[in-house]
């Protein structure tokens, strides 16, 4: 891509996409440089300086065992974004593939997929994940396994619906009459026109997955302490909320800011990719 092409592309970005992308980039960079941004360690307890309100030395205050909340929030970026990213985009890849194939091929494969999807959506997502955690025990790996087992279904559903439309269009029929094999018709021709809705949805899904991980950690079923996961930090501050509001409030705010910037990106992408609906969800 030349500089001009990049400039043209940026000119077509709606404001929400620019703002969201800028915020998100800032958050990512902050997460990358977290160890160097504050003089504190996220794990070292300072029992002499516990429950200190926000001040110049501790802009976000300290928690019940004297750890600097800002430091922990910044380190939390790494954990939450990493888990959010993996739980979104790994299932997206195979969800898209399976959904697109199911929509294109039809027949018994499609029937089987549909039944699987029906069963998967019959359970509340969080409930099923909690059940899997009950089976395998809490922890990040369990979250990955549980999400990988379930989260692809949304993408499969989306891709299947789009493919059913795309499959009847003349350019796909043309590709078939040109003698291209099914794999080429599906992946080279139809697929690029199927993925837009999933890309837009993935932004909302990213937000939901961050909410999911923090919720699980809040319930004590996700990322174990003392790791500075945002939801876990909210839970830790819960008992002190009346006297030390900052411990729970500020990590939660970090989730909101991250989620909102992702939603803004999704909203802008929906515009940019010409998807009128589902700007988020």
């Amino acid at each position, binding site marked *: 891509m030349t500089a001009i092409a990049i400039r043209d592309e940026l000119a077509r970005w709606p404001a929400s996409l620019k703002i969201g992308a800028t915020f998100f980039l800032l958050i990512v960079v902050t997460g990358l440089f977290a160890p160097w941004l504050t003089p504190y360690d996220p794990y070292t307890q300072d029992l002499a300086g516990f429950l200190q309100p926000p001040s110049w030395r501790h802009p976000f205050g300290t928690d019940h065992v004297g750890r600097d909340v800002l430091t922990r929030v910044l380190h939390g970026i790494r954990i939450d974004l990493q888990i959010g990213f993996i739980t979104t985009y790994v299932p997206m890849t195979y969800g898209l593939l399976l959904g697109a194939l199911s929509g294109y091929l039809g027949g018994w494969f499609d029937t089987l997929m549909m039944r699987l999807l029906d069963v998967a959506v019959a359970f509340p997502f969080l409930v099923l994940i909690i059940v899997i955690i009950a089976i395998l025990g809490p922890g990040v790996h369990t979250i990955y396994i549980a999400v990988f087992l379930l989260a692809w279904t949304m993408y499969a559903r989306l891709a299947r619906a789009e493919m059913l439309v795309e499959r009847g269009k*003349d*350019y796909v029929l*043309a590709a078939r*009459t*040109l003698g*291209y094999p099914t794999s080429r018709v599906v992946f080279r021709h139809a697929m690029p026109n199927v993925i837009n809705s999933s890309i837009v949805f993935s932004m909302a899904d990213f937000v939901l997955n961050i909410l999911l991980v923090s919720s699980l950690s809040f319930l004590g079923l996700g990322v174990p302490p003392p790791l500075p996961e945002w939801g876990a930090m909210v839970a830790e501050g819960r008992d002190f909320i009346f006297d030390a509001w900052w411990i729970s409030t500020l990590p939660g705010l970090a989730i909101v800011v991250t989620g909102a910037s992702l939603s803004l990106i999704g909203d802008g992408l929906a515009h940019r990719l010409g998807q009128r609906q589902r700007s988020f969800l």
Partner: protein
Amino acid sequence: MTQPLDGDAALVIDDLVVEYGAPRGLVDLALGRTRRRVRAVDGVSLVVRRNETVGLVGESGCGKTTLGRAIVRIVEPTSGAISLDGENLLTLGSDELRAMRRRVQMVFQDPYSSLNPRMSVERTLAEVLRFHRIRPAAGVGDRVAELLSLVGLAPELAGRRPRALSGGQRQRVGLARALALEPTFLVLDEPVAALDVSIQAQILNLLRDLRDRLGLTMLFIAHELSVIRHMSHRVAVMYLGRVVEVGTAAEVFDHPAHPYTQGLVRAIPRLTPERRHRKPVIQGEVPSPLNIPPGCRFHTRCPKAQDICRRIAPPDVALSPSHRAECHFPGP
């Protein structure tokens, strides 16, 4: 028009049936119902001779598009046979099928959806050439340029995506893509229906030029009778899945024998500037293909219908060596 009426048969369609079945739902299963089937094409036989253009005309839902799609095998026929140059297209293995694709190509109706929106004109054409190894890799670029000039497109359009092309230009790209494989037989499914008259005339001229230059045999599908007449040596008229009349263009349009064809020809608005004072010729609407009338399928709308028409399917009557109609009472 010079009419290759007695050349050897290129394409032979024999008693072709194409059915679409709505899948049986659980309720149907529970109530023991059989599958409801739509016969889109219901026993069609048709011959297209070498270098000939046969026009296939009919109203929406008559099965003409399905028939065209069955020839290029993007719709699987239920029974019957289609053979090209004596080779049955319906029994081909996948390798032979790929070879067959080089001989039979299709041009689609909607220029807005028939091109992949994400591929430039050049990539669309080059992909065909590369995939089928029509030219050595080094010659692909030249051949793309040749194809563009063949369909009358300026070379500078090669880099454009379909969105940046007009309807007529897109239709030319669609034609170039089909011609890239150097087919001998072309199925054209409503190739000008989506275009404005002035652009339509450009494309029709191009099609006639190419037909003469490349010696193409064509099945030309359209709902517009004037277009069909302009393009075709012979014409087949379809109604509810069957060919009800077939003959030379002059026979079908000037001396239609089937009441449906007669009504169709008379229903076309004329260019003579005179306020119309005629009753509509054909009353009523096309019955649902789920519920095809017994006897002659046209009897519900036919001004000539008699008792026999409601009970017995009409015979295929020969009115001349080239002219046939499926009617109990053919003729004027």
